[in-house]
């Protein structure tokens, strides 16, 4: 136990408050509460997922901002979708979208989610997320940095003001 406490003290607080405070205020003023995100991998290479995971590390501390990833689309304000949308995930993505309550904000993450990326459209992929469900905002990058994903969430929340 002493080791754990000592390591915590030694590590200190790493979160970059200047980058995140503004986002927190926006979310509060728009939603008046926490922002709940359901992440949907609709066929990605898992690169984008790695950077979405990074949002929960102590540098970005997304949960500390009142943004949390939820286990069900029924609890979600926003869907964070990575692509390209594979044909095998098309139905699951549509169903997830249908299950989310309004306002159903959708952010397509990564080059593949934004435009199909290197995979494009084919017998196996539908390409961009917007080819399958309505999209409010895209975050290009391969993969986009956590900061870029945060900015994307910020943009779409602000657009609701």
């Amino acid at each position, binding site marked *: 136990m002493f*080791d*754990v406490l000592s*390591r*915590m003290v030694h*590590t200190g607080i*790493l979160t970059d408050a200047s980058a995140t405070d503004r986002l927190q205020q926006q979310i509060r003023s728009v939603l008046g509460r926490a922002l709940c995100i359901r*992440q*949907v*991998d*609709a*066929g*990605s*290479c*898992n*690169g*984008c*997922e*790695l*950077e*979405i*995971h*990074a949002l*929960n*590390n*102590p*540098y970005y501390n997304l949960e500390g901002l009142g943004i949390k*990833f939820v*286990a*069900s*689309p029924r609890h979600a304000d926003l869907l964070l979708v990575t692509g*390209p949308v*594979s*044909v*095998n*995930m*098309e*139905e*699951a993505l549509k169903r*997830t979208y249908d299950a989310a309550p309004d306002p159903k904000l959708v952010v397509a993450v990564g080059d593949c989610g934004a435009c199909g*990326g*290197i*995979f*494009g*459209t*084919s*017998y*196996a*992929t*539908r390409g961009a997320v917007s080819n399958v469900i309505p999209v409010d905002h895209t975050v290009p990058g*391969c*993969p986009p*940095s956590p900061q870029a994903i945060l900015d994307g969430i910020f943009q779409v929340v602000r657009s609701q003001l």
Partner: protein
Amino acid sequence: MHMATTVLDRTRTLLAGNIAGERIAANAEEWVASATALHGAGARLLTLWGTDDRDRDRCFRIYAAWLHAAGLVVLEHAIEDRTHPTYPSLAELFPAAGRMERAVYDLLGIASTAPDRRGWLRHNGWPEDVFPLRRDFDATRQHAVQSLPYAYVEVEGDGVHEIAVGPVHAGIIEPGGFRFSVVGEKVLRLEERLGYTHKGVARRFQGMPQASGHKLAARLSGDSAVAFSWAWCAALESIAGVVCPPRAAALRGLALEHERLANHLGDLGALGNDAGFAFGLTQFSRLKEDLLRLNAEVFSARYLMDFVVPGGVAADLPRLASDRLYALYAHLELAAAELRSIYDEHAGVQDRFRETGRLDRDTAVRLGALGLAARASGIANDLRADHPWAPYDRLDAQSAGQNGGDVAARVQVRFDEIFESLRLCRMLLAELPEGPVRTAVDAAEPYGMGIGVIEGWRGPVAMVLETGPEGTIRRCHAHDASAQNWPLLEYAILGNLVPDFPLINKSFNLSYSGQDG
């Protein structure tokens, strides 16, 4: 090796690639006889794939590659029946071949003799008489998805019920289907259904310029981008007869070890979290972020998707990068050692890790386990140690090994590999050769075949490349060790509690995208 009486002694040709290999032509009988001999000799199936060569010599071909003590063996069987192409299944000998054979059928319409004919990559997203890798396939067409249920194997008995999970999971995870048959909380059977992230990569490769194939290779499984792009480049370079400059080889090694470190750090944090120890996630995800941020400085990207390029690497290290890297290694080593003792001594964490998700050695051998998961079940295997290619041929990489086969063992292997990777990184930096970091690779001759096999952080990844005319790719088959290792999870979970599944699954952390292709 007791293969003296078989076809393995005949008609062999050298195989181009980064590790020694041979290619052997076989008829249907020899296909089975050779596979049996390889099985008897303890060879492990690396991958299995097919080709449509009707445009060249009027036949389909099925190939299989094995790893054994002397290197790689590839069997090649030409199938002359073009109307109903069939070949003998290898799944009885090598269980992992079963799903690979189903995938070959879905893409090429070449059937094995195995009884399981359910689609593996095809989830009714294209018609059953359409085969995307056939030369006469119309690549411009898209098809509507037909929603049909999948025939999971049903388990019957008193009190047995099913839990269906996926394809969308409760977390930031790739999609896949899991069907648990349980009594109370105990798992009687788990059946996986994968293929949800199938992106038609093999078809996408076809006709692509050789000069850009590495970009697609890197995106087979984003967490193994360096391993896949290196394997691809190794295949191309071996066909083109190009030797990567020594400095570039060393930088590739550095990038591959950084990839291993990043994934192991991330997994160790997630495993702590799944055992209810959020402190572990905070600490390890911080260390991973420190590594990624330095990657951005010295390799110009957090994730090295486009660092390995044909003939070398995209850029040299910037000036003074070494000092920053050495400082990072010291920081990671100190922190990982401290966190390891915290994990080891934490009663709650150890209670969750030990004896959970145990995969015994015999089962692992029978199923053909590869890479990290095999090393945790007492099977020594690591290409960096067993068949070292440049720069590993001068590093004396040590393979990690544990015998427990449980979550705790897979955690320990990751810790051991972090320290070994840090040692390798320091060696690579200290002895970094001078010279260029890239050499030109001209378009390779058509109809050459090469295989790149690289020990990624999960296990070996393989890229089989066949060149086409005018600098194009004729056929490219990608393989991730996840294909072999997914079935291990179905065994490791048996008798465990459903709530331990996320922890056990994480301890393998297999790639969906890598297996789906």
